């Protein structure tokens, strides 16, 4: 299993702070699609992904036990 964390407004949109998700073997892009569908999240293509606190590209493959965090870039200032 994997832990998936939502940051900022993603948490509000998803309604949870984190979920357990079987993502091992999937790419980040796969997971993004599944998650955005399941939780009805918009604009997921430009959300940044961290795997175990390290930046991950969309084609990176998730390993068993990895913690995945979705961090939306914000623009306010």
């Amino acid at each position: 299993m994997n832990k998936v964390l939502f940051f900022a407004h993603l948490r509000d949109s998803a309604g949870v702070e984190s979920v357990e998700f079987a993502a091992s073997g999937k790419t980040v892009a796969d997971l993004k699609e599944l998650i955005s569908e399941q939780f009805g999240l918009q604009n997921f293509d430009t959300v940044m992904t961290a795997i175990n606190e390290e930046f991950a590209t969309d084609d990176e493959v998730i390993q068993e036990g990895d913690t995945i965090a979705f961090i939306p870039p914000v623009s306010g200032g």
Partner: protein
Amino acid sequence: MHDRHSRQELFQPIGKEGQRKIRSKHVLLIGAGALGSANAEVLTRAGIGRLTIIDRDYVEASNLQRQQLYTEEDVLEKLPKAAAAYKRLHAIDSSVEIRPIIGDANIEMLQDLVGDVDLIIDATDNFETRMMINDISQKYQLPWIYGACVGSFGMSFTILPGKTPCLNCLLQAIPMQGMTCDTNGIIGPNVQMVIAHQTAEALKILVEDWDAVRTSFVSFDVWRNQYSTMKMGKAKRATCLSCGENPTYPYLDVENHTKTTVLCGRDTVQVRPPKVQNLVLSELAEKLKHLGYEVKGNPYLVSVEWEENRLVIFNDGRALIHGTKDLTQAKAIYQRILG
């Protein structure tokens, strides 16, 4: 003002030598809103040599809650932010050379300005300007510091050309998140938190303590007590058009910028984003309603009264701003709502 920076010189990684370096440097600050005014104050107090501040807005009552250089008097006088900032910064340290520029930071302006700039600090409220700063940074090999905040959530990342990934590596396109301070609010402590990170990095860069510069991307939520760092080694892309092997600096091309046109005789400005969007209008309408605005809509557009203007937003991202002929103001309103 004898002794003015003594407590900073006592800080060993700066010292007297570092203080001299800070004094010899020129920082370009883009934006004089919440992040801009606070960045400007910290750098002025720290004894920066020169500070150029660009901002297109004037001071409004709703700014005072978090924009620290401004007062009620500035609101009553509707002073441009850059001018109001200058007034206060000059009272804080009359020996710092402050150059306020009242206007919209655009490609030509930035290219003209960066000649002797040592560092660019991002205090804008939109990704379009940030991507332009990012290309300027790569083209002229200047460090810049990204900072942003909405609600209680904030983030910062320091970009050193040739060393770290750039913003275009991270995002690959301008995000259309639709979450801004004007739609989701913002609290002062979050501004302070972003500023703490941006100004710490700024001082490190100004005293050339390169080893101390933060290489991770930091994000935090001051209300939910979260703080996280993300290592960025893997983010650098060799094919990045901004910092990769064959850079084209796409955001220095006007084609990739928001277009504004006055619609003749109608007191209306049309705003068109660089790329065709596919907005979920129902969501946008819902959010604007939630904020207490009267919203009308149909499957093709959303219409909303926004302060003294009326906005019509189409699902391709195009908008009409009624009640103004001012291109800069129209673009500002657009970016305040759509990010």
